C-alpha cells in the first residue's frame, strides 16, 4: 500500500512520518507541495512542522498549495488523510475539519509525552485501537488550542467526531480537551500530538516498562493499512 507524505517548505516531520509508514508495513511516497499529482497513493499524511514558518496563521499558506487542493478534492471522495500537528492545522484551514487552532493558553511552545483517550475507533486511522484505549504519544506545539463555536462543538460531540481527548493534562487550553477530530465519513483525521514519534522502541516516550519504549503511534499507520485492505 502506498501512503503519500506531503512536504511543504518548512515541513519538519516528513521523514519521521515516512519512517512510521515503513515500520507499519506500508510504502511511503514523498509528495511535493507544488505538484498537483499525488502519484496514485492510497492514503495521505500531512506531517508536522512549520509550513511557511507558520506565518499569517499556521497552515494557512500551505492550504493553498496545489497538492493540498488535490488532497481536499480526493478526501471528499473518501481518500484516507491524516493531519498531524501542522497537518491538522492545514486540514482546518482547508475546511476539511471544522474549528480552528490558536496559540496555547500558556503562551509557550510545549513538548511533552501526552496521554490521550481514543474515543472513536471507527475511523480509517484508529480501527486497531480499542474503544476508550489510553495511549501516550509525544505532543509538541505552540498553537494547538482547539476552538470552535458552541454549535460546532455540540455537533462534534453528538456525532462522536472527537477521536482523541487529552487525559490528565490539557496541554494547550483546547476546548473540551479535544486533541483530534474526524470528518463525517471517518476518512479524514487530524490531531495535534505526534503518533509518528512513537513507533520505534528507544525513540518514543517513556513507559512503565522501559525508557523511551512507547510505540502507541504505530497503530495509526497499521490501522490505515488494514482499512485499505478491507476496502
Amino acid at each position, binding site marked *: 500500500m502506498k501512503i503519500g507524505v506531503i512536504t511543504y*517548505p*518548512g515541513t*519538519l*516531520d516528513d*521523514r*519521521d512520518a515516512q*519512517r512510521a509508514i515503513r515500520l507499519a508495513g506500508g510504502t511511503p511516497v514523498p509528495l511535493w507541495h507544488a505538484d498537483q499529482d499525488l502519484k496514485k497513493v492510497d492514503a495521505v499524511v500531512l506531517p*508536522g*512542522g*512549520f509550513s*511557511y*514558518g*507558520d*506565518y499569517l496563521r499556521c497552515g494557512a499558506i500551505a492550504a493553498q498549495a496545489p497538492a493540498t487542493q488535490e488532497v481536499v478534492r480526493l478526501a471528499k471522495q473518501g481518500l484516507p488523510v491524516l493531519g498531524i500537528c501542522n497537518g491538522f492545522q492545514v486540514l482546518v484551514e482547508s475546511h476539511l475539519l471544522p474549528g480552528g487552532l490558536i496559540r496555547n493558553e500558556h503562551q*509557550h*511552545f*510545549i*513538548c*511533552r509525552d501526552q496521554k490521550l483517550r481514543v474515543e472513536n475507533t471507527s475511523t480509517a486511522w484508529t480501527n486497531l485501537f480499542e474503544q476508550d484505549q489510553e495511549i501516550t504519544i*509525544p505532543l*509538541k506545539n*505552540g498553537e494547538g488550542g482547539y476552538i470552535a463555536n458552541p454549535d460546532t462543538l455540540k455537533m462534534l460531540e453528538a456525532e462522536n467526531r472527537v477521536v482523541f481527548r487529552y487525559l490528565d493534562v490539557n496541554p494547550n487550553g483546547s476546548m473540551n480537551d479535544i486533541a483530534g477530530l474526524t470528518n463525517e465519513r471517518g476518512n479524514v483525521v487530524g490531531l495535534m500530538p*505526534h503518533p*509518528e*514519534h512513537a513507533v*520505534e522502541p*528507544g*525513540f518514543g516516550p*517513556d513507559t512503565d516498562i*522501559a*525508557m*523511551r519504549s512507547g510505540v502507541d503511534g504505530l497503530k495509526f499507520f497499521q490501522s490505515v493499512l488494514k482499512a485499505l485492505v478491507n476496502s
Partner: protein
Amino acid sequence: MSDRRPTNVDTVSQAAAEPDKAQPWKELGLKEDEYQSIREILGRRPTSSELAMYSVMWSEHCSYKSSKIYLRQFGEKVTPEMKKHLLVGMGENAGVVDIGEGMAVTFKVESHNHPSYIEPFQGAATGVGGIVRDILTMGARPIAVMDQLRFGAPENPDTARVVHGVTSGISFYGNCLGLPNIGGETVFDKVYQGNPLVNALSVGALKHEDLKLAKASNPGDLVILFGARTGADGIGGVSVLASETFESTGPTKRPAVQVGDPFAEKVLIECCLELFYAGVVAGIQDLGGAGISCATSELASNGGKGMRVQLQNVLLRDESLTPEEILMSESQERMMAIVPKEHLASFETIVKKWEVEYSVLGEVIDEDRLYINWGEKEIVNVPPRTVAHDGPVYHRPVEYPKYQDALNADGSKKLKRAESKTEVTAQLMQLISSPNQADKSWITAQYDKYVMGNTALAMPDDSGMVRVMEDSGLGVALATDANGKYCYLNPYEGAKLALAEAYRNVAVTGAVPRAVTNCLNFGSPENPEVMWQFKEATAGLADGCKELGIPVTGGNVSFYNQTGDVAIYPTPVVGVLGVIDNVARRIPSGWQDEGNNIYLLGTTYDELDGSAWAKDIHNHLGGQPPKVDLAKEKQLADLIHGASIQGLIESAHDISEGGLGVALIEASLRFNVGARIWLSELMDRDNLDLTAALFSESQSRVIVSVGREDDVKFQALCEARGVPVLRIGVTDKSGMIEFQDLADLNLNEVRTAWTKTLPELFG
C-alpha cells in the same frame, strides 16, 4: 523599481586623489597603528568601503586579535594519536571528526551574548541560526542543537525579561528549523546580570566524501549569494560611514539588531543539502558576522585566489543601502557559494525549486586581489588575505589579579556545617530546589526533542545523544559544562574541571569521548587581570585535552562580558563529543528498576570550596575548587564503557553541583524509582562528616545502579581497573528516598519542591 541607489560613493581613484581626507577610523573601532597599517598595505588611504571591511574584519569578534596567541596551543599541544579521528581541525568553520562507517560529524558552540541582552528573543534566535549555518557550511546536515545559558540573579526583575526572551527565542528558532534540542546548561548568578551568556551549539553529520570547505580556488568559478535578501540589519556601527558619504536625506540610524527567519533558514538548509548532493558547489561560506566582507575575503584568501565582485548585483530589501552598509550587513539566512560555470544551470534549478533567491556577484580570478565594484566605480581593491587573515595580533598585558590570593585564602572551612539530621535534610531540600539545581523543564519543555526521530537521550539525562545511522545505530553523545565559580577561584583548574565534567557526562552514557569544542566567555581583554584568567583557562584546557587524549576541534571567544569594571566569572564552556557504536546501548541517568544495587565510584574528599552548598546555604565563594585528576577521569570512563559493553549497568549519573546528595535525588526523580541509601561506610572509608559526604563536589565520581545478577562481575571489573567502588544503597518502589539514620524523603514531595522553582519565578 525606482533607483534609490546612492551614487556618491568613495572610489579607489578618489582615495588616490585625496590621500589626506580625514576618515572615521576611530569611530569604527580601529587603533591609530591599525589604520596606518591599512594605509601601508594599500599604499594609499582606504576607500570608505575598504575601511568598513578592514574595521569589521579586524575587530576582536572577527580577528581574535587578543586571543590568537593563546588559541594556538589547542593546535600545538596535540599528539598524532589525538589527530587520528580529525578530518578537519581548528581554523575552519567547524571541526570535523570521523565516527566510523564512512560518517563524520561536525560540531561547534558559539556565543550570542551581547545581542541577547539588548533584544533577548531575536538575539538568542539568531544565535541558533548562526551556529547552524556554520555546521551546514561544512557540508553536513545539522542534526541537533544545545544551548548554554547564564542569567542574572533569579529575583532581579530584569532577569525574567531576559529568561523569557532568550528561551522563547531559542525555542522559536530551533523548533521551526526542525532540530531536536538535546541538552544544555542553565545557571543563575548575579555576575551575569548585565551580561547574560547565550551560547548555542549545533552538531551535524555528513559522509566523508560530502565534506565542503570555504574556499574559492578555481579561477572562472562564479561567486553566488543566495538566501535572504540583504537589509539594514545589524549595521548600527557603520552609520558613521553612511552619514559621511550619504547626503543628509539618507537613512540616519540603522538598527543594531538582526531579525531571524527560521523558516528561511530551514528552506536554505534543504536547498544547500540538495546542492551539495548534486555536486554543484565547489566552495561555500555562511554569512555571519561581517557579512559579505567576511565571506568574499575568506573564500578568496582560503583558496589562495582573488575575486571580482559587482556589489550592485546584491539583492536588497532596501534600495537605499550604501555600499559600505551592504558590505557589513549582518542580515541572516544568507550563504555564498562558489559554483563552476558549467553547474550554474543545475544550481538555478535547485534554488528555484526551493524558491530561494540568488544573484551572481562575480567570479574567482587568478590574482591575489579582491576587486569590488559599485556599478562602474571601483570601491575596493585589496589583497584578500590582509582582510581575512592578516589582522592585528595583540600581546595584551597580563596581570595576576590583586584579589586572587585573598579569594583563595577565604576557604569554606569556617562555614558552619549541618549538625542535626533535620538541618541536613533541610539543606538537601534547599539545594535541590535552588534555581541552579532545580528542574529545568520549564525551559526544556519549550524545546522539541523528538523531531527527526533519532534522539536517544536528551534532557534531563547527562548527555544528549542522537543516532546517526539508522541501520547500525551508530550515534554521538554531547555534553557541555562550565562552572564559572570554579574558574573564578582558579581559571587553570576551572577550565580543566569544565572539561572533566563534560567528559564524564559523555562517558556515563556509554559513549567514548572523542573531541572537544569550546566557547570562551570572558570580561574585557583590555583588563590585564581578565587576560590572566584567559591565559590560565586556555592553558588548562589545552593541557587537559592532551592528558585526556582528545583534541579541540574549534571554538569561539566572547570578550567584553562586563558592566563597568565588573567582569563575569570566567566562563569557558567546554563541549565534549563522544561516539557510541549503537545507541541502543545508551545508559540513562536514573534508576530504572527496583532491587538494583547502588554503587559510588571514586573517592570523596572534603571539598566544599566553590560548591553549590557554599553558595546556596552560606552565600559564600572562596578557596580552591575541587582537585581534578584527569588520569582518574579516564580510568572511570574506560570502566563505564567496559561495563556498558558487557551490559552490567542499568544507570549512571555523574556527581557535580550539589554533590552526592543532589545526584542521588536526581537519579531517583528520573524514573520515579525510590532508594534506600546508607552513608556510614563512605564516611568511614573516606574520613568525612555528613556535610562533606553529601555535598562535597569531589571529581571523578559517578553513581551507578547494577542488577543483582551482575553484581559480582561488576565489582570484579572495578577492582581489576583500580576504581574505588562502594555499595551505598539499593533501589526500591517505596516512593521514598531514604537516607538511613538521616532522612526519609517522599519522592512526590521532593519532586514538587524541585519542579516548582522555575515556574514560580518565571511562570
